[in-house]
């Protein structure tokens, strides 16, 4: 595997730093802005991983829709976004311990798996032997999948979106006295 270049490290640092800002900043509005930065850099990671369509969808859906929706919700509940309100609960210590343990466990698993599961012929880990090559036309292949192999999930997910839309309308509508 080629060492990831400088671009990966920049994107990784930006991603993690802005993610930490999302979970630690006092002002919830600043958290939303940091979330947008984080989602943008994850889109950059997707481009590094040859997922151009997913990067575009990330920018359009996450940055363009979900993050803006979050900002709308923050604005509509705006008197709660002031600095005076404590934004974290009493579980900060426990949460830190749990997430550090989780992160350490995951990293240990990843590296131990890389060391442990080694193919006998080639001497490299199984999951580093790339099978096949990625299709050159990313968007066209994904569209082809949607119309052939993933037809049913595609239809189901459209029903899910419809249900979510109706659910949101029903939940957020004004009660008639």
């Amino acid at each position, binding site marked *: 595997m080629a060492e990831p270049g400088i671009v990966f490290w920049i994107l990784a640092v930006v991603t993690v730093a802005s993610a930490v800002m*999302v*979970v630690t900043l006092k002002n919830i509005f600043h958290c939303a802005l940091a979330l947008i930065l*984080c989602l943008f850099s994850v889109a950059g990671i997707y481009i590094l*991983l*040859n997922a151009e369509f997913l990067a575009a969808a990330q920018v359009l859906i996450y940055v363009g829709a979900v993050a803006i929706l979050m900002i709308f919700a923050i604005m509509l*509940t705006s008197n709660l976004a002031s600095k005076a309100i404590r934004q974290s*609960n009493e579980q900060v210590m426990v949460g830190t311990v749990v997430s550090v343990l989780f992160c350490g466990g995951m990293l240990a698993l990843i590296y131990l798996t890389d060391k442990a599961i080694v193919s006998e012929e080639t001497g490299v880990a199984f999951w580093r032997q790339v099978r096949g090559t990625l299709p050159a036309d990313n968007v066209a292949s994904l569209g082809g999948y949607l119309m052939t192999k993933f037809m049913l*999930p595609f239809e189901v997910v459209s029903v*899910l979106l419809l249900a979510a839309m109706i659910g949101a309308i029903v939940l957020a509508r004004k009660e008639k006295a």
Partner: protein
Amino acid sequence: MLFYLSLAAVLFAVGLFGVLTRRNTIGILMSLELMFNAANINFVAFNKYVWADGLIGQMFAVFIVVVAAAEAVVGLAIVLLLYRNWQGIDTDHVSVMKW
């Protein structure tokens, strides 16, 4: 690939920390988005480095994006409902739904 997987693990842990410690419901939803993104990075990384024969991993990630968007919509509708009924969206105020 190890670097991408490690990045995803760290991102997921940060999101987990946010979900565990945020009082604000919108903050919890934003941390959830971080966790979804970590899962997506894993899918795409495995797609490129392990099973590059097709774009199945990217397909999964696309569906995750859709489901995350639906989840955010319904979650924020619930947040607005909470705000209207209880004048607050902190999780420790809202214990009425615990049955």
